[in-house]
């Protein structure tokens, strides 16, 4: 199954500055989140001055704690099996 990891982003700047105690107003901009999986969705809106966001690079899933425990359990079980076979 093909899956997508990505984020919506928008950058403002180029002209003008917001001084101390100033205000920046985006005006109306659309926000949209599809219901794809049929499950309860969630996301976070992040606002930040003096920065630029871009689409993140491909992220290879990192091994989780559960996967590491699975590896440990497998190694222990295999060592036990081999020892029993030798005996």
């Amino acid at each position: 199954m093909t899956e997508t990891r990505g984020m919506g982003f928008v950058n403002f700047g180029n002209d003008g500055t917001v001084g101390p105690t100033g205000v920046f107003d985006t005006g109306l901009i659309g926000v949209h989140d599809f219901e794809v999986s049929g499950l309860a969705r969630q996301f976070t809106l992040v606002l930040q001055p003096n920065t630029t966001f871009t689409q993140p690079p491909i992220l290879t899933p990192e091994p989780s704690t559960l996967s590491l425990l699975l590896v440990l359990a497998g190694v222990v079980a295999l060592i036990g099996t081999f020892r029993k076979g030798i005996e």
Partner: protein
Amino acid sequence: MIRPRSFSYSPEWFRTVICAVSFALVGWFLFPNPTEADLIVSGTDTLASPATWTNQNAERTDTIGWTVTFPANVTVDWVPATGTYNPASGGSASIEGTMTITANFPDTNPISIGFQQVAAGTKNNPNPTPRAPGLGLRFQLDSVNNNQDPTTGWGSFAMKLVDPNVQPTFDNTSLDNQGLHPSFPHFHGKGTPTPFNFVSGSDDGNKGHGVRELRE
């Protein structure tokens, strides 16, 4: 004659390494580490639904099935859409409301606002859904940002929508044949920013920038 030796005749250390690597690969695919969501500090509100719905098969509920959670230096004003709410239209009549988020920045650190859909079928989530298939949450955002730092000015401003989960790839050409709708949350339009200008992202960031991983 040299006969090939089976795996069971290999040195024990070699078998252990091979098995450990195999289990690691299995674990990697089965239990990928989820991306951490940004921390939400305090405050939760539900989003009231538009007053008038056109979908005759759906029972109108008081909310649209989403909550918004925000920190103390943020206020959120939600105005449900007026007129006739027609989620099947795919156009402006499917917009559920307008949200004004006023954020007070004591410095240039990011401020996060969380959006959470309640479980389907619960009392505050329309069931059957009045929305077009897969239409999901759709609203107009007015982001008002106050610089409360007495010494530091701003030369730019950015917003992003972070989905903590990897989503199934959506056929984003089916709604408007323009490929503007990825399965992750996204922006539409360029706003009417003051004093900055629109620089990049929004619809342009939705086309062909979805990072895809192939999983079997």
